[in-house]
């Protein structure tokens, strides 16, 4: 049971959940969480490939650490913009932010 395909399957599941979450969630924070899910799916993938296929053991781990760091920075920026948006629109619902179109 502990083989590469199971991990890949879990990662793919997580990735599709993330994508579905981005479409379905109406609030921006929800979308942010969904994106985090997608990033984690990718890191699982890296670790799984490293564990089963790649000869050099540490590459997958380093990738995951970097992904976590960058995801944190991204979350910080996203939240600051969402706060600015909230100050103006009084809501973080994505449907309110439709001024630019066409």
């Amino acid at each position, binding site marked *: 049971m502990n083989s590469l395909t199971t991990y890949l399957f879990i990662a793919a599941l997580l990735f599709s959940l993330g994508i579905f979450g981005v479409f379905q969630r109406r609030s921006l924070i929800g979308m942010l969480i969904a994106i985090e899910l*997608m990033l984690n799916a990718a890191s699982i993938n890296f670790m799984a490939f490293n564990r089963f296929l790649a000869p050099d053991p540490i590459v997958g781990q380093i*990738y995951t650490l*970097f992904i976590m760091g960058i995801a944190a920075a*991204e979350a910080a920026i996203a939240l600051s*913009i*969402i706060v*600015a*948006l909230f100050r103006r629109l009084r809501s973080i619902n994505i449907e309110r932010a439709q*001024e630019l179109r066409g």
Partner: protein
Amino acid sequence: MKLWILFIPELYCLLMGVVFFGLAMVARPNPRRDYFVALLLASAGVVVALASIKLEGTLFFEAYRVDLFSQVFKVMLAMGFFLVICFCTELNGIEERHHPEFYLFLTTCTLAMMLLVSSVELLTIYVALELSSYSLYILVPLRRGHGIDVEAGIKYLMVGATSSAVMLFGLSFIFGVTHTTYVVDIINVLPSVISSPAAIVGLLLVLCGFFFKLAVFPFHFWAPDVYQGAANQVTAYIASASKVAAVAIIMRMVSLVGGDSKYLVHVLVTLSIASMTLGNLVAIVQKDMKRLLAYSSISHAGYVLIGILSMSQTGYASAIFYALAYLVMNLCCFLVVIKVAQDGSDLKIAQLAGLHRRSPILAMALMLAVFGLAGIPPTIGFTGKFLVFAAAMEKGYITLVIIAMINATISLYYYILVVKAAYLMEPDVEQPRLAVSIPTKLLTGALVTLMVVFGVFPHYLLEVARAAARMLLQV
């Protein structure tokens, strides 16, 4: 000792960042001082980049490669950065206290792109790409109190984050298939294994991340809103410098495959035609100048893709040439937009009316830039298009070239609308004469001569581009 010399342009950018960070710490905001410091440093940056054009070598355990290919792009990036700084004489689209942050983030973005250009390891590519995107995400909402800039910011961030997540997923597959993260090894392994679905899907997902940067068809949704929402100077930077970097990295990624995968070429052809046609058609109905330039940038992404997808040395050389041509023409257009919209507001095409009387030099610059974008001969734009089509024709893509030429004719329609506004339309209320300062006149003159000279006599620039392309394929 010898190694860090290879890294000078990046180190210099880092230094600039630190200086701007220091300025941001200072209590009293003084925009004049910030502008002069920025101008000085940026010009020195260009000199450094030019000086280091001949460097060769690899750093950081083969993860960072410095060769003519990367150095040419670094020069372009430094030049783009310097020109955008020149446009910020009266940066009233952003509050005075944010000016140092504005320059800081511009520098970090240029630094990130320089890293991106010469990184040859998947992780470094990812980190550099993210750094440049994040600094742009911050720059977009910096605009002085309009409100739509925040909306543009959040849209830019969401689309960017999603596509980078997708790219990462793709990278993991590439890593899974080739067991290595160094581009050099991938180039040897990938062609043999390209037929397996995992590899192709992986490569495709990776390309999504970069297509987002270049605003190619499916990933272009952010471009119109961000161009319109962001401050004029920020849009100028996004439209020119980030495009150049995107072209560089896509070329590196596409060269991974080595040009024998029929599927990839078909995808690239469809995407290029789609983005050209969509860009040109929607641009026809646009009323806002920056939005029009956004859609024109989408269509130009399609033209550059033609150069890249022919996957030959001449193809890559023409793509490099086209990237530079596009950089210069776009900056010239934005120069006019910025000078006409003094208060940093969004410029409507109708507001261009009577420009030939208000300031003849700006009107002439606009006309030349616009005809360059449309691909009319005496300008560099035509030579770029000519080279790109010649490369595509060598590979036998005749229908693609004909469709591209028809798109060029369609694009001429909305470009002529801009010229018509500038030259023909009379403004309903008589605007005052535009006072154009001497340095701006010099800058316009320089840009115009650059466009016409390299359009009429492209020999030297083409030799540089061909040398750079040769370096790319030797890696």
